[in-house]
C-alpha cells in the first residue's frame, strides 16, 4: 500500500515537472507582454511533433541529435508569431490580443492535424522495463524527465538573477515604461522572452510526449493546466508557477483514487474554481 502511495507521488512529481515548464513559459510571456497567450499550448504540441518529424522516416535521427533542432524549430514558431502577429498589435487592447492568440492557436493546431492527422502517435522508442526502487517502478525516460526539468529550472534561475538579459526581463515585467526610461532595449528583451518561453514549451511537450503520446489536441488541455498552475502560484510569478505546476501534477495523480480517470484532465480546472471561490483576492476582476 505504501509503495502504491509512493508510486502515485512519483507520477505526480513527474507530471508536475512538465506542467511547471509549461506554466513558467506562460507566466513569463504574461509578465513581459501582459497578455495570456492562448497559442502557448500549441507551442507545446508543435515541439513534440517537430521531434516526431525529425525522428520519423525520411530523416530518422536519433533522439539525442533531434532534440535541439526540434527546440530550434519551436522557437522559430514563437519568434515568427511575435514578429508577424503580436508585434503589430503591441499597442492593441488585451482582448484583441486574446482573440488573436485564440485564432493562432486554432491555426497551429489544425496545421499539425493537416500534416499528421488526428490520430494518437508515439515516438516508437522501445519500451524499457522500469527499474524497481523501494517498491516503485521508474523508467529511464522518467528519470530523464526529472533531471532535465530540474536542470532547466536551475538554468532559469541563473538566467534571471545573474544575466543582464534576465534582469531586463524582470524589469520590463515589473514596469515597462520605467524599464524603457532606464534604457533597457524592450524589443530585444521581448524576443528573448519568446525564445525562452517557446523552448520551455517545446521541451515540456517533448518530455510529455516521451512519457505518454502525441496528438493534436494535447496543446489545448495542457494550456488549461498551465494556466491553472499560473493562477495557483500567482500570475506573473515564475517560482509560483513552478509550485503551481507541482500541485496540479500531484493532485491529478492522487485524484485517480477517487474519480474516474476520464476526469483526470478536469482536476486542474476544479482546483482553479475552488481557489477562486475561497481565495478570490489572488486575481481580482476589476481593472482592465
Amino acid at each position: 500500500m505504501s509503495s502504491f502511495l509512493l508510486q502515485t507521488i512519483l507520477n505526480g512529481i513527474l507530471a508536475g515537472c512538465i506542467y511547471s515548464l509549461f506554466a513558467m513559459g506562460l507566466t513569463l510571456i504574461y509578465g513581459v507582454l501582459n497578455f495570456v497567450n492562448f497559442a502557448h499550448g500549441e507551442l507545446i504540441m508543435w515541439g513534440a511533433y517537430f521531434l516526431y518529424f525529425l525522428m520519423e522516416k525520411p530523416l530518422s535521427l536519433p533522439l539525442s541529435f533531434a532534440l535541439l533542432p526540434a527546440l530550434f524549430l519551436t522557437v522559430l514558431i514563437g519568434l515568427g508569431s511575435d514578429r508577424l502577429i503580436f508585434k503589430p498589435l503591441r499597442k492593441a487592447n488585451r482582448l484583441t490580443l486574446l482573440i488573436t492568440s485564440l485564432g493562432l492557436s486554432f491555426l497551429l493546431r489544425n496545421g499539425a492535424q493537416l500534416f499528421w492527422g488526428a490520430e494518437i502517435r508515439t515516438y516508437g522508442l522501445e519500451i524499457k522495463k522500469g527499474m524497481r526502487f523501494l517498491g516503485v517502478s521508474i523508467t529511464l525516460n522518467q528519470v530523464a524527465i526529472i533531471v532535465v526539468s530540474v536542470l532547466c529550472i536551475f538554468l532559469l534561475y541563473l538566467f534571471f538573477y545573474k544575466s543582464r538579459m534576465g534582469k531586463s526581463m524582470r524589469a520590463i515585467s515589473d514596469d515597462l515604461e520605467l524599464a524603457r526610461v532606464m534604457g533597457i532595449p524592450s524589443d530585444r528583451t521581448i524576443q528573448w522572452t519568446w525564445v525562452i518561453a517557446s523552448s520551455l514549451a517545446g521541451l515540456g511537450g517533448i518530455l510529455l510526449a516521451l512519457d505518454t503520446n502525441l496528438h493534436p489536441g494535447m496543446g489545448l488541455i495542457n494550456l488549461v493546466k498551465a494556466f491553472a498552475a499560473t493562477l495557483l502560484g500567482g500570475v506573473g510569478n515564475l517560482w509560483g508557477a513552478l509550485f503551481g505546476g507541482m500541485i496540479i501534477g500531484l493532485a491529478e495523480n492522487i485524484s485517480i483514487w477517487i474519480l474516474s480517470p476520464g476526469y483526470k484532465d478536469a482536476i486542474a480546472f476544479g482546483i482553479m474554481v475552488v481557489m477562486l471561490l475561497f481565495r478570490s483576492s489572488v486575481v481580482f476582476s476589476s481593472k482592465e
Partner: protein
Amino acid sequence: MDLFLHLSVMSLIYIIFALSLNLEIGYTGLFNFGHVAFFGIGAYTSALLTLHHFPFEISLLVALFLSGISGFLLSLPSLRLRGDFFGIATLGFGEIIRMVFQNEVWLTKGPMGLPGIPKPKLLSVRFATLPQYLLLTLGFAILTFLILRGIIRSPFGRVLKGIREDEIAAEALGKNVYRFRIKSFVVGSIFAGLAGVLWGHYTTFISPNDFTIIETVLVLLIVVLGGKGTEWGPILGAILLIFFQESLRFLRLPPEYSRYLAPLQQMIFGALLILMMLFRPEGLIKERREHGCLS
C-alpha cells in the same frame, strides 16, 4: 432547393447562437470562450428528455433552465477573474462539459452519441419536414433577436455597455458590476442553450465530438467577422460563414483529399480571426458609438 433550406436552417440556428454570444462579448465585454458548453447542455438535455418521451415543450423549458443555471454556477467563480483569465476559465469549462458528455455513459451513452432524436412537436404542431423546421427556427430566431434587442436597448443594456467601456466609472455610478455581468452571462447561456436544442432536434444525432472548441471558434468568428456590439453583425457573419462551411461539405472531392478538408477549413477560420484582429478589429459592420455612452 433542399440544400438552400438546409443552409437557411443552419444559419438561423447559428444566428441565435451568435446573438447570445454577442450579448456577452459585444455588449458586456465578457470574453466567453466556452460558449459551446451551453449549446451542448441545451442539446443534450432536450434530446435526452424527448428520447424518454417527455413532450417537447417541457424538454425545451428544462433545457433552457439548465443552460441558465449552469451559466450562473460557472459565472460565480469565473467572473471574479479579469478579462483574459475569464477567457481561459470558460475555455476550460467548455472542455470539461465535453468530458462529462463523454464519460457519463449511463446518461449520455458516451462517445456513441444519441441517435434518433425526435422532431419537435410544439403546441400539437409537428415540425418534421425541412420547410416546417425552417419556420420553427425562423420563429425562434426572430424571437431571440427581438428579446436580445429589447435587453440591449433597455436601461439594463446601457449599463452593460457602460461596464464594457469603463468599469470603474460604472461602479462609481453605483452599479454592481459583478451582478450585471452575471445577469448578462446567464441570459447569453440560456439563448445558447436554445440554439443547442434546435440544433440537436435538427440533426437528430448528437455526440460529444459535436461540442468541441471548433464550435467555439466558429461562433466567435461569426461575431467578430460580422461586427461585435452591433445588432445585425452576428446575423451577417452567421450567413456568410455557415454558407461557406456547409457548402464545402457538398464539394465532391476524391476521398483521399477529404481528410485534409476539415483541418484546412479550420485553419482558414483561425487565420481569419487573426486577420480580422490585425486589419479590421471592428468587423464588417462597425458599431455606432452613441452619445452618452461612458467612454
